[in-house]
């Protein structure tokens, strides 16, 4: 099945504020979208609408393919060592003792460290490791570069590029510049209501 993600005429309302409206785009396999804009403009809400976790105020989203999401919510047990916390999701995603790409994200040395002791950047990398393990064709990344050092940023950009080369889709919401060759750039400020 070919991955596909398309949004038609999306509008998002939070409370009594209309955050954006009239937003449409379509992604074919290999495409990437960079959602840009200042804090509070609705990037995270858009990501959650695309994931199906939030109902749009109007418009619709068409998805073909499984969705993978990383955002500021880590969804790992804070008290468990990182290895065990990730192992739950690995089992759920049907992997057994598989940690194929962890080294790319340099997490092997942290497997015995309880999740609550991890730094911001390490937590981001842990969330990405889970995404790599699950290997969904559509990636939704909410501020993936927050708290990452220069080397880790390059790794993330490389992983996204590899992911797209494999015929998958990446949507990246980031207020910072991200290297996404050939990506559509959606500046949410243009759609603000």
């Amino acid at each position, binding site marked *: 099945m070919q991955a596909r993600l398309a949004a038609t005429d999306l509008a998002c309302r939070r409370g009594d504020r209309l955050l954006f409206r009239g937003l449409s785009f379509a992604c074919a396999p290999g495409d990437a979208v960079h959602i840009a804009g200042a804090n509070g403009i609705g990037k995270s809400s858009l990501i959650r609408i695309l*994931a*199906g*976790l*939030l*109902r749009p105020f109007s418009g619709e989203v068409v998805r073909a393919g*499984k*969705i*993978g*999401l990383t*955002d500021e*919510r*880590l*969804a*790992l*047990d*804070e*008290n*468990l060592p990182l290895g065990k916390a990730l192992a*739950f*999701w690995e*089992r*759920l*995603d049907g992997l057994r003792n598989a940690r194929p790409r962890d080294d790319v994200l340099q997490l092997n040395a942290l497997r015995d460290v309880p999740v609550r002791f991890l730094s911001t950047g390490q937590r981001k990398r842990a969330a990405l490791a*889970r995404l790599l393990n*699950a290997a*969904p064709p559509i990636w939704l990344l909410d501020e993936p570069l927050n708290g990452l050092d220069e080397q880790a940023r390059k790794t993330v950009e490389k992983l996204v590029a590899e992911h797209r080369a494999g015929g998958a889709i990446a949507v990246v919401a980031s207020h910072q510049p991200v290297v996404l060759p050939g990506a559509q750039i959606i500046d949410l400020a243009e759609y603000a209501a």
Partner: protein
Amino acid sequence: MIATLLRRDLGRLLPGGPGGAGVLPLLFFLAVAMLYPFAVGPDAQLLARTGGGVIWVAALLAAILPLEKLVADDLEAGVFDQLYLRGMSEEWAMASRLLAHWLAFAPLLLLATLPAAALLGLSGETTRTVLLGLLAGTPGLAAVGLSVAALTASLRGGAALAGLMVIPLAVPILIFGAGALARPDPGALLLTGAISLGLCAVAPFAAGAAIRAAREG
């Protein structure tokens, strides 16, 4: 997939796990049974007559203690979001949570009922009725607890509110479960079981809907 989730939920909720209340509800339960004779005096007849009801009230209040972390932590951490994206509905996630919650608190509570009954000087027959009643009633208490915990998970100060909301909802279980002590009639126990099963059937849907509503909020 559901087995994997159930294993995680149990690991979190059993005493010693990070998401449960540990042995605190049990100690609370035993403390009530221990304090009651001090409060009403050492009249053995009075204790034997009212002790069963006290155990029921203590069990109900002890069931409130684990609710604080039952759903709120995972909701906050986005666990249900990630489960949803993997195709697991909130209803299944809540059904697993319900079973894990019951297993983590009811069997130990039933065990603790034996020393509690001894402290209150209950007869063998009364103790049996209390145990059977609790066995029939605790799934219902767990179901009410889970629904309320899910409803209040996204609210500030939700834990205190959860405690208040559980009490009126648990009254039917208490009436029939503890009522079996007054009349030697198996009908009351059967009704308690029926109420419990009904609540268990509804709880995953109510709690699942609450999780979805919290996501939109």
